[in-house]
């Protein structure tokens, strides 16, 4: 294998894939990236056995071939070379040499055949959708994913496709975020997959929000083709809870408030809530909401917010972070909050819009 390219042509794909190169290697080869030179293309693959990223670069190939080299070292070398430098990479025996100007580096290699890659994921169909749609789904829900929960199926994002929409749901068991986008174009298959947390965060990092993407859902993998980079992740093999069941339908006690005003009041009151449990009490009365917090040092915060409300008098406690996350994800000027009673879940959303829902379970304070 022998090829050459400008420094920047190599740097960009290397930076794109480096996130999944294992620092703590269970297998030595996972610290390497796979280089495949063919035609006028170089494909760079990195994997942690859960997420695989393949980035491509335009290079001039003198001799095709494939080999693996230490990923971080290759990136560090390219990064340290001067702007605009021309880089020549060639394999000889079990070494790879990198030459640029007066610099020369020799890297150890491991055989390409030993590098674990995911080939066909057995997806029935490939769906085209705007990148902005998927980016939005993740942005509006990812914060509700569980972390290292023993209920392993919560440590990821549910992606659900139906004929005319695609939906994302995340929950850590205390709160739930749901976002869906309507899609025009062809009819999509109905599918449900859980993408692991790490894959979701990696994907979020890779998407620019511009252009199109191709989405494939296999039985064990999800694959997303972005411009210049292909993302493949294993799926979590588990059953996501029946989330529809926990979204309250009753809107008898529904209030409407100015989103920024409510958010500001919550942020201020939160300062004196218990740092660990973040409990805050909401007292709902006709036309007003009282927010109260106190901490173990017996310090107290109280604030009143004007709301539109004609429901019953209710006092209910919440983890204020959950409310703030939801208010941060909602974009409209006003927000509605529907409460049943002090022991049942409440739902926050944009008034008159069912495409985003944030369900929060109360705290007993």
């Amino acid at each position, binding site marked *: 294998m022998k090829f050459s390219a400008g420094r920047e042509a190599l740097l960009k794909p290397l930076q794109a894939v480096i996130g999944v190169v294992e620092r703590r290697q269970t297998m030595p080869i996972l610290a390497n990236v796979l280089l495949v030179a063919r035609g006028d293309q170089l494909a760079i693959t990195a994997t942690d056995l859960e997420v695989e990223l393949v980035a491509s670069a335009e290079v001039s190939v003198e001799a095709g071939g494939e080999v693996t080299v230490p990923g971080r070292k290759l990136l560090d070398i390219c990064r340290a070379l001067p702007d605009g430098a021309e880089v020549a990479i060639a394999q000889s025996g079990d070494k790879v040499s990198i030459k640029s100007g007066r610099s020369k580096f020799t890297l150890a290699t491991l055989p390409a055949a030993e590098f674990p890659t995911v080939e066909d994921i057995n997806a029935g169909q490939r769906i085209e959708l705007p990148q902005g749609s998927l980016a939005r789904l993740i942005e509006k829900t990812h914060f509700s994913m569980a972390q290292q929960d*023993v209920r392993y199926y919560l440590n990821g994002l549910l992606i659900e496709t139906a004929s005319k929409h695609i939906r994302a749901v995340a929950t850590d068991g205390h709160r739930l975020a749901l976002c869906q986008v309507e899609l025009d174009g062809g009819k999509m298959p109905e599918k449900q997959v859980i993408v692991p947390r790490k894959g979701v965060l990696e994907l979020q990092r890779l998407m620019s929000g511009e252009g199109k993407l191709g989405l494939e859902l296999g039985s064990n993998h999800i694959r997303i083709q972005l411009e210049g980079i292909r993302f493949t992740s294993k799926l979590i093999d588990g059953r996501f809870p029946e989330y529809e069941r*926990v979204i309250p339908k009753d809107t008898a006690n529904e209030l409407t408030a100015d989103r920024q005003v409510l958010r500001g009041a919550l942020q201020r009151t939160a300062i004196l809530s218990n740092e660990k*449990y973040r409990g805050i009490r909401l007292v709902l009365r006709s036309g007003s909401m009282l927010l109260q917090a106190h901490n173990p040092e017996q310090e107290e915060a109280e604030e009143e917010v004007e709301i539109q409300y004609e429901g019953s008098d209710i006092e209910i406690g919440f983890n204020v972070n959950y409310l703030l996350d939801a208010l941060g994800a909602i974009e409209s000027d006003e927000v509605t909050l529907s409460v049943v009673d002090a022991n049942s879940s409440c739902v926050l959303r944009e008034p008159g819009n069912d495409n985003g829902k944030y369900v929060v379970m109360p705290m007993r304070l």
Partner: protein
Amino acid sequence: MTTTRQILHVDMDAFYASVEQRDRPELRGQPLVVGGDGSRGVVAAASYEVRRYGVRSAMPMREARRRCPQLVCVQPRMAHYQAVSEQVFEIFHEFTPTVEGLSLDEAFLDVSASLNLFGSAEAIALSVKDRVRERTRLSASVGVAPNKLVAKIASDLDKPDGLVVIRPEDLPGALDELPVQVIPGIGKVTLARLHEHGIRRVVDLRLAADGTLEAIFGRFATRARERAGGVDDRPVVPDRADKSISAEETFAVDLADGAELQRKLLQLVERTTRRLRDRSLMAGTVQVKIRTADFTTFTRQKTMHPPAAGTDQVYAAARQLLGDWLAGHPGAKLRLLGVGGSELAPATQADLFGQDDPRGNDKLDRAADQVRARFGAASLTRARSLDPERTG
């Protein structure tokens, strides 16, 4: 603190041993220890009669017997000591609500606000001692000082049945003549280093050169000097909730990896989680404590998202911790295993999915806890935690 505080440290004298001698006249005057009597037993409490032989609490029973071959050993009755302790703490609460228990037999009392009601701190200390004697026929030693640090040191100066008062005007020199290790936080290693520098008494520490203290205590140098001068601003935190809950077991025979170890682990998890559930708490962190045959102790911990008190959840975490440790120490033989929960949170955050409750297999655990409360801890256990050899 602008105003002077008045802090009492009350320490029951040889508590478990004294309770046994009170209840069983034949043990009075005997060199008595309370503790496990197996080859692995440890002294939990030593009577004053046996302390003359150099027997101390926390000493291996074998060592205690070597020092005092005629010693008398009785098994601890923890539930009974707990009940006596509650009587004693009730007395503390008659003088102030600001009682911080350190263990069953030891507490700090902040009586600063009680002086108008009961007279001087010294008078309160005498009343506490009297009431403890009247109601429990046990003796306590009390230290009176402007802060917790000095009060605790003072209570130990005139044991048993002591009362030592150190006044604010006696500081900073009040502790000067004591050996430097009375200052908390000075362990074996630090003590050896202090001795290398000729620092043996508290006064040596209080007046040591800055450079010397920095070399020994690093960024805690100033704190160490302050402590030597009897400075301590820590408040008495009333009725502090449990910081951690744990259970551990020293094995009769060292155990290597295998089914027996897993059974022990599950038993310890059951004990810990049951106590968590009894207190309506969830553990934000799960620890596994491992002591190997050569007495090296390891702890491994894992954060729980969300906090858990269910047997299955905690067992999954504990098994992973133990498994990871064993993988790194192949062939290791374990002398002791412990399981604990800390970062305890009240179980207040409600859950969206009832049957997936992070508190665990809630109904099963609760029902099992009720059976155990009625028929004893051994009445109901998971089959996995039983030894097939013995039950087969």
